């Protein structure tokens, strides 16, 4: 096992997939010089045709990726969540809808890698955590890795998947180190993490926390701290939101009887909302306490460090939520 930084895991996945399949190519803003670090060394190995620096034209190049995918290519587009708004028409009107609208004729193996920079004073225009909005729109697979190994394995799966995928890369994890298995140590000689399979991050019996993206680390810290008090908290990382492994979540709640969800997206109609509603509908009789959502406050991201941290879920808020479930 090698200790790998999250952003390096992205780079490894891209390089491996571009070597494996010549139809895979990268496009985005400032990727040749790897401004964000994930596209380092691509230009020298794969050349200008397969590593495209785009103009600032999200609607144009998001759509060009779709068109290329329709005729046999496998584009990976690098962008930021906050720039996705500019290209929303292509993501929604075309990527999400084409296959169904054309009766299954269109196949779109296109991947959008969307960085979520929040928590670092980036203010309202650079801090979006927008995956719940895409959950509401059928037709896009939604990937939310929480550690370097999953980042690598899920991105490789996304490139091979034949449907449009958006990989939400949590910027709070960009420098996170984690164990990523060496390819030669793996049975298939590569790391591929399938969609729709949640991961049990901590086992526990008193309460379940489902963490989304950066929320998983918070949940794991809470579990570790509460363990010292003899409170046993199970932590589940869904890893993909579309498809969602609701089976693991429901069976965990069946065991613990309590559910907290921590989600860095805004609280209203969040991933946490959807998971809460699934458990309320399908796991109600297992519940011994009201479900607790710990998501971002329904307010824009303020620039000042005096205010920004108050928006997001943190260890303190999640711990308090677990305690509330145990009081009932």
């Amino acid at each position, binding site marked *: 096992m090698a200790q790998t930084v999250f952003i390096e895991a992205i780079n490894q996945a891209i390089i491996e997939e571009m070597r494996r399949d010549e139809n895979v190519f990268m496009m985005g803003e400032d990727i040749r010089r790897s401004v964000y670090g994930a596209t380092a060394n691509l230009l020298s190995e794969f050349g200008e045709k397969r590593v495209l620096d785009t103009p600032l034209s999200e609607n144009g190049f998001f*759509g060009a990726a779709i068109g290329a995918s329709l005729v046999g290519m496998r584009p990976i587009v690098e962008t930021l969540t906050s720039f996705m708004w500019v290209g929303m028409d292509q993501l929604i009107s075309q990527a999400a809808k084409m296959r169904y609208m054309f009766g299954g004729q269109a196949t779109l193996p296109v991947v959008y890698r969307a960085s979520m920079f929040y928590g670092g004073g980036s203010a309202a225009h650079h801090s979006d955590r927008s995956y719940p909005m895409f959950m509401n729109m059928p037709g896009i697979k939604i990937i939310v890795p929480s550690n370097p190994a999953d980042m690598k394995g899920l991105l490789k799966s996304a490139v091979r998947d034949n449907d449009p995928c958006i990989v939400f890369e949590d910027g709070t994890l960009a420098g996170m180190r984690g164990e990523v298995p060496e390819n030669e140590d793996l049975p298939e000689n590569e790391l591929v993490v399938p969609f729709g399979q949640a991961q049990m991050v901590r086992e526990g019996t008193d309460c379940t926390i489902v963490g989304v993206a950066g929320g998983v680390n918070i949940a794991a810290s809470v579990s570790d701290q509460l363990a010292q008090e003899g409170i046993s908290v199970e932590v589940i990382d869904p890893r993909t939101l579309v498809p969602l492994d609701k089976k693991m979540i429901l069976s965990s709640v069946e065991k613990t009887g309590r559910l907290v969800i921590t989600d860095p997206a805004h609280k209203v109609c969040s991933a946490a909302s959807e998971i809460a509603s699934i458990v309320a509908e399908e796991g109600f009789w297992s519940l011994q306490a009201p479900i607790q959502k710990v998501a971002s406050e329904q307010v824009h991201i303020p620039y000042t460090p005096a205010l920004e941290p108050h928006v997001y879920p943190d260890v303190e808020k999640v711990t308090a939520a677990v305690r509330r479930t145990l009081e009932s």
Partner: protein
Amino acid sequence: MDIDRDLLLLMLRRMWMIRNFELKVMEVHSAGEFAGGAHPYIGEEAVAVGACAALEDTDYIAGNHRSHGHPIAKGGRVDKAMAELYGRTDGYCKGKGGSMHLADYSIGILGESGILGSSVPVAVGAALAASIKGEKFVSLAFFGDGASNQGALHESMNLASVWSLPIIFICENNQYAVTTSYAETVAVEHVSDRASAYNMPGILVDGQDAIAMYEATAAAVSRARAGDGPSLIEGLTYRFEEHSLGLGRVRRGEYRTQEEIDTWRKRDPLDILEQNIIAQGVATRKECDDINAETAEEVEKATEFARNSPFPEPSDLFDDMWADPIAFP
């Protein structure tokens, strides 16, 4: 340019096919045989047919809401198109797309888009694939004067130009975005003038003249295949009917004078092509009339085919959502 006799007759056949298809659609729509909107292409047939006559089956097109003409011009099947309008399982999209979303991936029709300008970046992407792979196919995007104001168009033309992509932008300037004149909404005199901002040829063509459209497109296609980049062609044309079927019943206020409509109707693209064909001795009056009658007959059969095709079952609702299926929540 010396145009092959067979190609001229194919163009005439496809134009009659579109005309007769649209006349039938208007008839059965007003009889209430299917629901939803439909946007007749009558009056504009020469634009799509002339442009697509310059393409191969291996080339790609993408279009818009006025969507029946493009696929027929590219060689699509009227039976599957009509069945789609009827919402039946034998339709091009198994009834899931309807009038505004015809597509035939077997002959490079990537699909029509109800959001205007939205299919143009997609067409650019097909051209990008040709460029990356070093293949010789080209891509062609149809859009209207209204969509020429969309950011998607401008982003697409710039992208295509900086990457020198093999794409032809075809503006079907029918002069009105629903009821709003392009003269009031387009800042240049001709949409084709916009090409200069993107360093590509901009060619204004008489959109009622199929041969002129063919010649301009063929030159742009040669340029694209040679790796010399995109072109913008504006076919100046006119929509003989209302924006969409049924709109005449709901809109208030005139936006075109009767004189203007009459003037343009005298420039019927079918008359213009037939006169040319007859004058060149390519076909007789009777042969032209036979083509009209044969296509009307084919459309009649297509309509029967559509009427007799079954509706999808409710259990078909979830089909075709995913290429690699996942469980539905």
